[in-house]
């Protein structure tokens, strides 16, 4: 059974903190993605990676960076968390063009 896991379900951080969100997939997929999901705005792509150490900006990369040192792990970094980064963060992986497998999400609150 395919599996995408995210390091935390709920996270509370303070403004200005550096935040790491971790995502691990066990399906040997080339592609991995980070989204945020907000009411009324839907799913928005932050970054994606199509290979180890390769990354591309998505639609809303400002304030975020990513790291992919190993194929199975894709990290999202908030360099200095701000309240407008309070959101649900979803990680996904995919072997190709269509099916993306999503993790359960991390609800991040920045106070």
């Amino acid at each position: 059974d395919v599996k995408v896991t995210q390091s935390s379900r709920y996270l509370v951080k303070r403004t200005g903190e550096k935040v790491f969100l971790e995502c691990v997939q066990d399906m040997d997929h080339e592609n991995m993605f980070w989204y945020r999901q907000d009411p009324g705005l839907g799913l928005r792509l932050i970054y994606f990676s199509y290979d180890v150490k390769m990354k591309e900006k998505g639609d809303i990369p400002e304030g975020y960076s990513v790291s992919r040192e190993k194929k199975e792990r894709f990290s999202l970094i908030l360099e200095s968390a701000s309240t407008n980064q309070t959101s649900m963060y979803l990680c996904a992986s995919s072997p190709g063009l269509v099916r993306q497998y999503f993790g359960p999400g991390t609800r991040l609150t920045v106070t």
Partner: protein
Amino acid sequence: QKEVEQDPGPLSVPEGAIVSLNCTYSNSAFQYFMWYRQYSRKGPELLMYTYSSGNKEDGRFTAQVDKSSKYISLFIRDSQPSDSATYLCAMNRSGGSNYKLTFGKGTLLTVNP
């Protein structure tokens, strides 16, 4: 104009009803058209997809794509309370950064017993 438009609902129907969910899009380069289902407090999961125009049926679910109108639909027959979820349409291009999906905002569906 947004690339993908989807009525957010909410949509509430009685059990057994036929449900129609729709999206419109503006980019004629889209080739793959998908429907994802997201239960509360879960990540989305792929329900079904269609390549280019046409229909596809899977049990109680039918996906339709009309590229001439830039309009896609998902029909659910004999809807069940277990179908209560948010349904997101998604699509991607055939070339370039074709791994990148463009999602609609999702329609929240509730099927009442």
